[in-house]
C-alpha cells in the first residue's frame, strides 16, 4: 500500500536507501566499485550494504575503472542489473571506452538484440579544494552520447527516486551525484516504490519574469538567486531543475520561456559545449519568437580547477553571478 509519509534524510542516505531497497527487491541487482564495501564508500553512500548483503552482491574492486564498468556491461548483457560506483566523475574518463563505445552503443550496433541495464554512479563538483583532477562537472560529456540516460538529481527525494528508476530501467544510465549535495537534507518519501521518472523537470519556484534552469547543485544556487532577485530587484524568477538531461523535459522549459520570455541557464561545467550551450540552442530553435533577450549562461570558469580556495570560489557559479546574468537579460530594452 502506497504511503505519503516522509522521512528527513541526507542526500547520501537517500541514495543508500534506494540501493538497499532495490537490492532487497531484486536478486539480480548487485554493486561493484572501489572501496564500496569494507570501507563503506568514499562518500559513505554504500554504508552498511556489505554487512547486509554480503560479498557476492556488494563487491569491492581493484582500481580498474574501465574494466569494472566493462564487467558491468557484460554482466548486464547476460542477466544481472549491476550498479557500478566510480569514486568521482573525474575517474570516469578512464572508463569512457566502456561507457561510450560499449554500454551506449551495444543495443543499437547489434540491432536491438541485447539490453544493457547498467547504472554507473559517480559524484561531481567543485568546492573542496581538490584541484584540477578531482573537481570537475561533466554532465555535458555524457549528455553528448546517444544511448545513455543521464540523471543529475539535486534533492534527496530525487536522488532516491531517480536512482530506483535507473536501476529498474533497461538502458545504461550515467547517474551523476554531487559531492556538495551528499550532506544536504530533504524530505524523502518512505514508499519503497517511490520512483521519479526520467524526463520530468521539476519547477522549484514559480515566477513570470525570467526562467532560470539550474543543473545539479546549481539548481540550488538558482533558487537562492531567485530569492535575492525577488527581494532586492522585484524580479520573479521561475526556477526549473531538469533532473535528467537524457531524456530531457524540454517541453516544461519551453512552456516557461514562452511565459517569461527570458532564460538563464546555470551549470558548474565548462562553457564550451556545455549543457547551457546545448539548451540555449534548443530554446532558440523552438522558441525564438518568444525570447525578449538572448539566452544567458552562467558556467564554471573555462579552466582546470585551481586548488587555492579564493581562486576556486570564483571559478564556479554562486548566487551573485546568477543575479547579474538575470539582470543582464533586462538591460538595453
Amino acid at each position, binding site marked *: 500500500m502506497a504511503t505519503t509519509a516522509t522521512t528527513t534524510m541526507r542526500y547520501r542516505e537517500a541514495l543508500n536507501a534506494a540501493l538497499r531497497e532495490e537490492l532487497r527487491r531484486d536478486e539480480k541487482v548487485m554493486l561493484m566499485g572501489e572501496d564500496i564495501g569494507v570501507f563503506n564508500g568514499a562518500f559513505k553512500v554504500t554504508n552498511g550494504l556489505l554487512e547486509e548483503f554480503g560479498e557476492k552482491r556488494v563487491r569491492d574492486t581493484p582500481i*580498474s575503472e*574501465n*574494466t569494472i564498468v566493462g*564487467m558491468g556491461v557484460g*554482466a548486464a*548483457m547476460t542477466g544481472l542489473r549491476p550498479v557500478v560506483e566510480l569514486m568521482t566523475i573525474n575517474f570516469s574518463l578512464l572508463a569512457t571506452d566502456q561507457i561510450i563505445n560499449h554500454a551506449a552503443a551495444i543495443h543499437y550496433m*547489434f540491432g536491438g538484440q*541485447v539490453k544493457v541495464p547498467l547504472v554507473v554512479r559517480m559524484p561531481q563538483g567543485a568546492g573542496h579544494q581538490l584541484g584540477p583532477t578531482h573537481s570537475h562537472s561533466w554532465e555535458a560529456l555524457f549528455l553528448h552520447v546517444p544511448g545513455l540516460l543521464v540523471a543529475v538529481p539535486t534533492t534527496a527525494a530525487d536522488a532516491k527516486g531517480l536512482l530506483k528508476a535507473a536501476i529498474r530501467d533497461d538502458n545504461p544510465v550515467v547517474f551523476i551525484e554531487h559531492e556538495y549535495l551528499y550532506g544536504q537534507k530533504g524530505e524523502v518519501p518512505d514508499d519503497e516504490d517511490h520512483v521519479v521518472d526520467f*524526463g520530468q523537470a521539476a519547477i522549484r519556484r514559480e515566477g513570470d519574469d525570467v526562467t532560470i534552469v539550474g543543473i545539479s547543485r546549481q539548481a540550488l544556487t538558482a533558487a537562492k538567486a531567485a530569492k535575492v532577485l525577488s527581494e532586492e530587484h522585484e524580479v520573479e524568477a521561475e526556477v526549473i531543475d531538469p533532473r535528467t538531461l537524457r*531524456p530531457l523535459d524540454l517541453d516544461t522549459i519551453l512552456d516557461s520561456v514562452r511565459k517569461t520570455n527570458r532564460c538563464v541557464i546555470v551549470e558548474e561545467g565548462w562553457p564550451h559545449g556545455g549543457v547551457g550551450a546545448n539548451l540555449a540552442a534548443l530554446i532558440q530553435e523552438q522558441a525564438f519568437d518568444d525570447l525578449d533577450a538572448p539566452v544567458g549562461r552562467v558556467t564554471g570558469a573555462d579552466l582546470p580547477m585551481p586548488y587555492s580556495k579564493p581562486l576556486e570560489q570564483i571559478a564556479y557559479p554562486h548566487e551573485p553571478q546568477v543575479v547579474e546574468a538575470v539582470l543582464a537579460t533586462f538591460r538595453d530594452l
Partner: protein
Amino acid sequence: MADVEERESGTGALPEPDVAREWLETMTLIRRFEERAGEMYAKAKVGGFLHLAIGEEATIVGAVRAMRDEDYLISTYRSHGHAISRGTNPDRVMAELFGRKDGVSKGRGGSMHMFDLEKRFMGGYGIVGGNLPLAAGMGLASDYLGTEEATLCVFGDGATNQGTFGETLNLAALWSLPVVFMVTNNQFGMGTALERHSAVTDLHRRGEGFGVPGLQCDGMDVVDTYEVIREALRRAREDRQPTLVEAITYRFRGHSMADPEEYRTKEQVAGWRERDPLKTFAQRLIDEGVVEAGEPEGIDEAMIARVDESVTFADRSPFPEPESLYDDIYVLGDQVGRAWYSVDQRSAGMHRGEEERDLDERSRGPLAEYDKAVEQAGREDIGLDKASDQAQADDDSAEEATRAESAEGGDSMRKE
C-alpha cells in the same frame, strides 16, 4: 584426458569421423566465405573495413567446437568465422556485410560487429581489448547466477598490450571467474610484428603475474586447439580457474583489405602457407582413412555453393528503411519515450525520413544520399559466375588478384 601440457601438436586423437568431417566442412566454409567477402568488398558491395581470418580457421573451429551450447563466445572485429562456426546462418552474416536489413545486426554493425544472442555469440567488437571486461562480466553473471556456463573470450596479440588485458585477467583470477582468455597470436598487431610490440613474446606467460596460468596450442592444428581449449574450459567450469591460451597462428591475408603488407616478406607468408590448417587437416583425414581422397574437394564445392547462396541472399535483402534510423538507440519503456531523448526523435512518432519516404523523387531532398547509396549498391552485379571461378583457382593467385583489384579500386576512405 592426457595432460595437455605433455602433448605434441599434430598427434592429438581425431574425433569421431562425422565430427572430424564437420570440422573440415566448417573450416572450409569459413575460408570460402572470407574469400567471397573479399571479392564483394572489391566490388563495393561491402564497405568499411573488412578483416579476414584466412589462415586462422583452425583457431576458430577448434575453439568453438570445444564449447557447450550454453557457453558465451565473445570476439573481435575479425569474427565472421566465429559467428558461422557458432551456428549463425551465413546468409545473415553476409547480409550484415552488405549492410542489409536481414543482417545479424540489421545493418547497424557491419563486419566488425556481428552478434547472435540465440547462439550466445556475444559479439564482435571494434575496440582492441574492449571485449575483455565484457567477457569477465559475462563470467561474473554466470557465476552469480550459479550456472555451469563458461565464457570464451577471443582477442589478438595486439590486445595484450591494452590496459584492459591486465585489469581483466587480475579480476577474473581474483574472483575465480569461469572465463577462458584466448589470444589468437597471428604474429602481428595490425602491421607491427610481435617482437616489435611485446617485450615478452611468449604471450601465454603474460597472465602469470595476474594469477592466470597459460597454455599454448598450435593454432594451425584444429585438433590441438580443440584439446587445449576444452581443457581450459574444463578448468574454468570445474576449477573456477581462468586460463590464458595462446594459439599460434598466422593470417594469410593483410590486416584488412586496405593493407599493402609492407611489414612482412613473401617468403614468410609462403612458409606459413605450407602449414595451411585446411590442407593439413584434410590430408590427415585422408591419411587416417576418415575421408577418401577427393572428398575434401567435394566438401569445398559444396561450401562454395553455400557461400554463393549467402551472397545471393545478401544482395536480395533490402537496405534498412530510412525511418528505422533512430530505432534501438534506447529500450523504450518507463523512462524513455515521453520526453526528448534524441534531438531528431523527440517522440515515438517522429522519425527522420518518415515523411520523405513516400514523396516523389524531387521532394526527397533530405533522402538524396540514402537514394544515392542504394543506387550505387545495385549498380555492380555480384557476378557469381566469375567469382566462383576465382574462388576455385589457386589460393595464391586468387589472393593476388583480389589484392590488386582492391589496391586499384581502393579510395582514400579505405586506407587504414
